Structures are given as structure tokens and as C-alpha cells.
């Protein structure tokens, strides 16, 4: 590969952020233009990356390799079918965030855009890196801009939420750092592709798996370490919530696929019951909590935990359907939850309230907005025809293959999701207009309508035509499962 396209995609936002730093216009116009321009180029580049990505090849593509720390670590980037989608998702969502926050953020917009672009660099880096230390570096570095986004531009309890977010995630991650160092001394490498070949001894796998798990479980988040998420979501500004739900949570799901299963297949098999139990608790318990919320953002945040429960459930079935469903669920949740948070942001910008009881009868005042909102609500509950359905359906399919009981319990979660989502729609959109403030609201403006319409189109498109995504991920997923099965079988034959 001659042109380092991955490095370009990763570091372009950083360059953009630097130019915003230098820009000096009074109304921050140039800062806005630069950010939109940078993210747009990045989106085009990532789409081009997806386009030129060869579906037939199982190995990592666009690999870039440089010595980074002599004798120890490499600067190694590369993508396969799984990561390319997340790169596109990240560029897309950041683009959406930039467009939406340009109008909604009034205070210190220049700094906000810088933080957002720096964050984009780190997020893209996570999905591209093929070296464990590099991965860790990007994974952790994202905390700094996110901490500032929540803390500076957040709501009333922003300080508490920012600290909780930062410390929870950091605590989970430091164990991963110990594990990475241990892997280095065990195998002499932190290059993921090399570790796949070397195969870590089984007695180490369990403990290393747990160390990685502690980090990903916090980030995902899984029950019982999910408590930072509702706080962070509620207090973060709209763009922050969108990034958090759409991408930061996906890093952990991606981490499970790339690292936990890829490097520790035996331990992954061993811990399947643990993951199932935690996922089921997440699905049922958080859905019940979501039913009790009176804050819209909190409701969506809890629903995110439930949806991510489906992801882990699917991934750890180790079936084609399950894993593909899990990935699909992540992509679709990235679109739908982003859209839902944007919708709440639209309401919040007008009413300064996120409480469900303050609304009601919005449909008669804001018809366009209500239409969009309802589509996303239906997507969130997994109605057939939206992208949410395909992911959940495949996950359940995979789960039925493995364990009937688990699948049945998970299906209850689908019903509960429908319950809280419809309840949210009923309370906010339908009914009578009780609050006088609602009566004078204006419908979505041009940029809001544009952003939400794109998301609607994508949600419906991927609901009816999932082919492009499956074509991209299938070879990589099948390869992952083959390797995993090979390991399990060789272990069984060893025992015999």
C-alpha cells in the first residue's frame, strides 16, 4: 500500500483541530467551516475506504507498519471487514454531530469543535490499530476530550458525571494495560496478527481475558458497571451523548471481537456463562429501569445498556448469525440511538427540559419532528423494516442455536423494549397538549431536518437491504469463527 490512507483518516481531524485553534474570526465562522470541511473529507475518505475494501480477502488490508518503540512495539494499522464499518460509522456520526452542534452550542464553540475533532482521531485510531499498545493509547486518550465535553458543556450535575465517567473507565482500563504488558512478555509481541498465530497458553488466557473484560465491560457497559452511563448521557451535551452512544460504546464491542475472542478463544469459551448471565440481566433489568424513567435521555441511556446486552449475547454465541447480528446491532444502534439523542436535543433546545411529563401532544405542534421521532422509536424497539430488527433477530437466532432458555429470556427483553419505547412515544408525542410552552414550539429547522432525515433513510435502508453490511463482515466473521472452532476442537482432541 503506497498511500497511507488509514493514517490520513486518523490524523486528518487532528490537523483540522489545529487549524481551528489558529482560526481567529469573531463569530467563529471559520472554525465552523473548517470542522464541517474536515469531517466531510474524512467521511468521503472512509466511504472510499469501504468502497476499495476487498470483501473476498480475509487478512487485514491497508496495513501500515512502522517501528514505533524500538525492540518493543510497532505502529501497525490495518482493517478487516469488521473495523471498516466502524470507521465509516465514526466518520459519519462525527459529521452529524458537527452539523448539529454548530447551531445548538452557543458557548465556546471553537473549543468544543476542537475537542470533537481530537476525539474523532482517537476513536478512529481505536478501530484501526493492530497493535495492543497503540490500541490502548487511543482507547484511553479518548477520555480526555470526552471528559471536557461532558464537564464544560454539560448540564447541572456535569462535574459529578464527568468524574464518574473518567474514573470508571480508567479503572477498568488499567487492568487491560497490565494484561497487555503481560502478553508482551509472554509472546514477545503486541502485534495482534502475530499473537493470533502464537496462541497464548490456556492458564494465562483466563486471567488475561478477565483483565480485558474488565475494561470492555465498563466501556460497553455491562451490568453491574453500567451506572456511569446514564449519568454521563444525561449531563453530556447532545453531541456528546450521540458520540458516547454511537461510537464509544461500540469500541468495547469491537474490542470483544478483535481481542477477547481472537486472542483468547479458550477463555472466551470458558466464560460464556458469565457473559450470558450479565447480558441477560442487562437486557431485562435495564429495560425495567427504563420503564420507570421520567427523563428522556436517561430512558434512552438505559435502553442502550439493554441493546448492548444483545450485542454481547450475540457475539458470545460464536455462531455466524449471532456475531453478525451483534455487529449489525452495533451499527444500527449507532444510528438509532444517535438519532434519538438528537431528537431529544431538538426538544431540549426549545424547551430546556428533558422531562417526559413536560411534553405531550407534540404531534399536533411539531408534525415533521414527530414523524421522524416515531420512526426512530420504532427502530429502537426493533420493528421489522428498521435496522434494529435485523440485529436483534439474528442475535436471537444465534442464541436459539446455542441455548434455548437464554434465547427465551432475551426475547422478553424485546417485548420490554417495545413497552418503554412506545410508552415514551405515547407520553411525548401523542395525547393532549398539557403544557402551554409546547404550544409555541417551532418545528425542526433546516439543518435538524436534514440530519434526522439522513438518519431515517439509513435506518430504513439497512432495515430493508442489509446486504452491503453482511457482504463486508461475513468473510471476517467466518474467519473468526473458524479460528475459534479450530482452537476448541484441538483442545478437545488433546483431552481425548
Amino acid at each position: 500500500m503506497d498511500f497511507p490512507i488509514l493514517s490520513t483518516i486518523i490524523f486528518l481531524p487532528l490537523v483540522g483541530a489545529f487549524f481551528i485553534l489558529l482560526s481567529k474570526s469573531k463569530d467563529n465562522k471559520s472554525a465552523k467551516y473548517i470542522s464541517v470541511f474536515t469531517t466531510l473529507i474524512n467521511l468521503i475518505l472512509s466511504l472510499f475506504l469501504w468502497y476499495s475494501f476487498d470483501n473476498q480477502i480475509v487478512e487485514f488490508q491497508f496495513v501500515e507498519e512502522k517501528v514505533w518503540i524500538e525492540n518493543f512495539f510497532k505502529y501497525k494499522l490495518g482493517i478487516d471487514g469488521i473495523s471498516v464499518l466502524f470507521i465509516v460509522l465514526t466518520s459519519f456520526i462525527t459529521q452529524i454531530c458537527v452539523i448539529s452542534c454548530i447551531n445548538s452550542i452557543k458557548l465556546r464553540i471553537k473549543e468544543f469543535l476542537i475537542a470533537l475533532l481530537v476525539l474523532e482521531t482517537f476513536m478512529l485510531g481505536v478501530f484501526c490499530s493492530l497493535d495492543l499498545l497503540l490500541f490502548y493509547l487511543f482507547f484511553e486518550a479518548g477520555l480526555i476530550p470526552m471528559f471536557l465535553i461532558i464537564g464544560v458543556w454539560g448540564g447541572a450535575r456535569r462535574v459529578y458525571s464527568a468524574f464518574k465517567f473518567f474514573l470508571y473507565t480508567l479503572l477498568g482500563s488499567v487492568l487491560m494495560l497490565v494484561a497487555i504488558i503481560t502478553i508482551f512478555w509472554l509472546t514477545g509481541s503486541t502485534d495482534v496478527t502475530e499473537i493470533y498465530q502464537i496462541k497464548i497458553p490456556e492458564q494465562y488466557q483466563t486471567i488475561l481475558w478477565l483483565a480485558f473484560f474488565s475494561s470492555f465491560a465498563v466501556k460497553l457497559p455491562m451490568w453491574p458497571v453500567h451506572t456511569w452511563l446514564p449519568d454521563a448521557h444525561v449531563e453530556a451535551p447532545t453531541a456528546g451523548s450521540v458520540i458516547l452512544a454511537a461510537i464509544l460504546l461500540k469500541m468495547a464491542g469491537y474490542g470483544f471481537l478483535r481481542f477477547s475472542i481472537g486472542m483468547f478463544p479458550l477463555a472466551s469459551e470458558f466464560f460464556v456463562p458469565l457473559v450470558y448471565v450479565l447480558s441477560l440481566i442487562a437486557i431485562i433489568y435495564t429495560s425495567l429501569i427504563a420503564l420507570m424513567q421520567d427523563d428522556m435521555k436517561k430512558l434512552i441511556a438505559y435502553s442502550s445498556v439493554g441493546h448492548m446486552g444483545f450485542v454481547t449475547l450475540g457475539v458470545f454465541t460464536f455462531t455466524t448469525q449471532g456475531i453478525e447480528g451483534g455487529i449489525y446491532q452495533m451499527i444500527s444502534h449507532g444510528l438509532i440511538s444517535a438519532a434519538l439523542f438528537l431528537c431529544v436535543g431538538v426538544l431540549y433546545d426549545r424547551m430546556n427540559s428533558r422531562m417526559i411529563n413536560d411534553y405531550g401532544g407534540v404531534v399536533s405542534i411539531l408534525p415533521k419532528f414527530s414523524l421522524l421521532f416515531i420512526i426512530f422509536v420504532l427502530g429502537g424497539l426493533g420493528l421489522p423494516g428498521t435496522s434494529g430488527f435485523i440485529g436483534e433477530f439474528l442475535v436471537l437466532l444465534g442464541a436459539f442455536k446455542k441455548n434455548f432458555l437464554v434465547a427465551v429470556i432475551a426475547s422478553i427483553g424485546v417485548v420490554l423494549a417495545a413497552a418503554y419505547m412506545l410508552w415514551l412515544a405515547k407520553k411525548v408525542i401523542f395525547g393532549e397538549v398539557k403544557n402551554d410552552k409546547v404550544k409555541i414550539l417551532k418545528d425542526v429547522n433546516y439543518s435538524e431536518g436534514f440530519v434526522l432525515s439522513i438518519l431515517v433513510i439509513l435506518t430504513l435502508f439497512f432495515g430493508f437491504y442489509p446486504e452491503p453490511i453482511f457482504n463486508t463482515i461475513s468473510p471476517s466473521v467466518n474467519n473468526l469463527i473458524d479460528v475459534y472452532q479450530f482452537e476448541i476442537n484441538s483442545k478437545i482432541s488433546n483431552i481425548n
Partner: protein
Amino acid sequence: MQNINLIFTELYLFSGICILLMLGVYVKNSFNKIYNLSILLLIGIIFVIYKNGLEKSGIFLDSFISDPLSNFVKILIAVSSIIILFTSKQFILDNKISKFEYPIIILLAILGMFFTISSNDIILFYLGLELQSLSLYVLASIDRDNLKSSESGIKYFVLSALSSGLLLYGCSLLYGFTGSTNFELIKNELTVENIGAIFAMVFILVGLSFKVSAVPFHMWTPDVYEGSPTSITNFFAVVPKVVGLAVIIRFMDVPFENILSDWQTIIIFISVASMILGAVAAIRQTNIKRLMAYSSIGHIGYILAGVATGTTYGYSSSLLYMTIYVIMNIGAFSCIYLMRKDGVYTEKISDLSGLSKKRPLLAVSFLIIFFSLAGIPPLGGFFAKFYVFLSVVESKMYILAIVGLMTTVISAFYYLKVVKIIYFDEAKTTFDELKNFPTNSTIFISCLILISFFLYPSVLNNVIFNLLG
């Protein structure tokens, strides 16, 4: 024929001090001149040390040696002292502690440090250490009309004298049980069966832990840091720590090499205790200098974790950590020099509130330095911790690594608290717009190093590792 060139650095420094002292006595109002000449003298020293080269050789019956480790540490000391003198001048003038003795005493302390580092003999080691300590007592109370400064000087003196006593007792025990004062000869005599010598090792370790302010011999640190003028605190937080680390490495590497497992246990304990106390005790501090004191205690814990491995790799990672620590601390204190309100220097953390609105660049510098101190990637502080834990895990000390990283999370809390005050709180106070070129440029350079460290993280490490060979 003895090669007198080996000790040329110290002779050069010593004669320089004598000349400056004469100048100070005979020329009136000579603070400015002597201050600038001291900086020049130190710059000259870098070249002299550089000429020393990397060979290891000794003179005076091998009681004084020059080797790569000592030369590296000497350069580190000289460079950091230059920067500290360079940045703190405005502060010294504003606080009217501009006595001509000030730079000269610092030079004397440096002379003592140079002897300590180069010593290969207990007697020379002790003499050097005492010259350093005596100078530091005077420096702590240099603002003698200020009650707090005098108090910190006395406190430092009393406690430090006690630790010097213990150290000396250990040295005499060591001589008694091995029959020699030379490090190499002691090493040959010292075995695990030699219980008396192990006692001596404990006493010496206690004395040295005091000098680097490791727990449980840290009590003096917060008070002395708070009481001394900030320019002196800056010096305390950086330079004596470098010396302490170099001496600990020297002791562990040469005389105590054969009783590795005995001193390892102690260092592990000291390291863990320092990490925990440094992380927990700093949380409730309201004075930024006290915060930096506890932060430095925590950092010493991480540095000692590298020493505890007893491998060359561990030592080099500790030295790397120390180098980055020096950069971070110089940057942090340079920021503190800029906390001036209506001509009065403030030390309260709450005065920083809302700094990001009034002085965005200073706020960003604080942000970078404090996140780096917390060890968040991709900043330099992360790599410092990373190298230390790399060597710790290599030696299979998993518990030490896990405790160390857990305390990172706790200590991240109070660094974040400062960031929170700067970025999230409403603006209350406005600092003076200081046109202080030395401080501003130092902040800029240290931030630049911390940010760009991840581009070439191995360069510095390779240099240090090759030095230790």
C-alpha cells in the same frame, strides 16, 4: 598517574563558586550579576560533563568515579537547575528574596550532589550528601522574615539531621561488618549470611528514603514544600529527587547487589506505601504546593517500583520516569509562578477557578501537564509509567503492577479536580498578565515535549538503557 580530569567538573564548579562569592562580597547590589553568572557557570558545566565521555574510571583509590550513570544524572541536574533558575527570577525579585547568596547556595548544593553521585566510597558519599543537605536547609528558610519559611527550614533541618544520623549509623555498621568503605570491596564482602550488614542496609535505605521523601519517611515534605518560597520548592521537588534516585540505584547496583532479595522487599513496601499515600492524601489539599508535594510522593512510589525490580531494565525505566517527572514538574511550577494576583503570589487551588475563560493558553498548559502527571495517554507521563510497569511485569511482580495502576486511578481524581476547577468552574479571580518570557517559554517547551513524546517514545529510553549498559 591519576587522571585529574575526572574531577574537573567539581573543581570547575568549586572555583566558580569561590569567585562568585568574592564578587558578591565586594560588589554592591550584585544579585542580578551573580544570578546570571551562576546560570552561565551551570551552562559551562554541561559542556565539561559532556567532555567527560562515557568511560568508567575512578581516582583517589577508586573513591571517586565517573561513569555514564553519574554523568547522565549530573547533566540532568545541571539542566534542570538552569531552567529553574531561569524561570524563577521574576518570582525571586517580586518576593524580595533576591540576596546574592541565593544562587551561590544553590550552586553549593549542586556541588554536594555531584560528589554524592560520583562517590564510590561511603565517606565521600556521606560528605557530599551533607553538603547538599546543609545547603538545602538554608534555602528552605531563605525568606527568613517569613514565619512559614523559617519554620520549614527548621523542620527540614531537624528531621533531615535525624535521618542523616540513621544513615551515618548504617554506614558505620556497614564498615564494621565488611571492613571496608569502598563500594566495590563492600560488594565482595557482603553476603546474605552477613546479618549485621543487612541491618546496615536497612538504615541506609531509611536515610535515602527520607531524602527522596518516600513513605513512611515523607512527613516533612508537605510542610517544607508549602513553607519554602515557590522557587525553592521547585528546586526541592526536582533536583534532590534525581540525586536520591541515582544514589539508591548506585547502592542497589554495587554494594548491595548480592543481597538483592532482602532490599527488594523493603523497596516494594516503600514503593507501594508511597503510591497509595501520594494518591489518597492529595485529594483533600487546597494548596497547590501541598498538592504537588503529595503528587511527588506518589511519583517517587512509581519510580521506586522500577528500582524494586533489581534489573538494569528496571533502573533505566526509573531514570526515564525521573526525567519525565522533572519535565512535568518544571512545567507545573512554571505555571504556578504565573499565579500572581495584584502583585501577590497565590497558592490556593480555588484561585484557579475559571482560568480557561480568562487565560486559555495557561489553562491548556495546566491541562496538559496535569493529565500527564496523571499518566493518561498519549502524554509523556503515560510512557513513563508504562516503561516502569513494563519492567515490573517482566520481573513477575504482578501485585506491584496492579496496585500501582490502581493508585493511578485514585491519583487521577485529584489531578482531574484541578482540571475541573480550571475548566468547569466559574471565573472568580484574574491573574496579572505577566510578560515573563522565561516562564512562558519553559511552559511551552515542556508541554511540547509531553505532547510529542509519543512520536518517538523510544529515543530517551534507548539512551538511558545504553548508558546503564
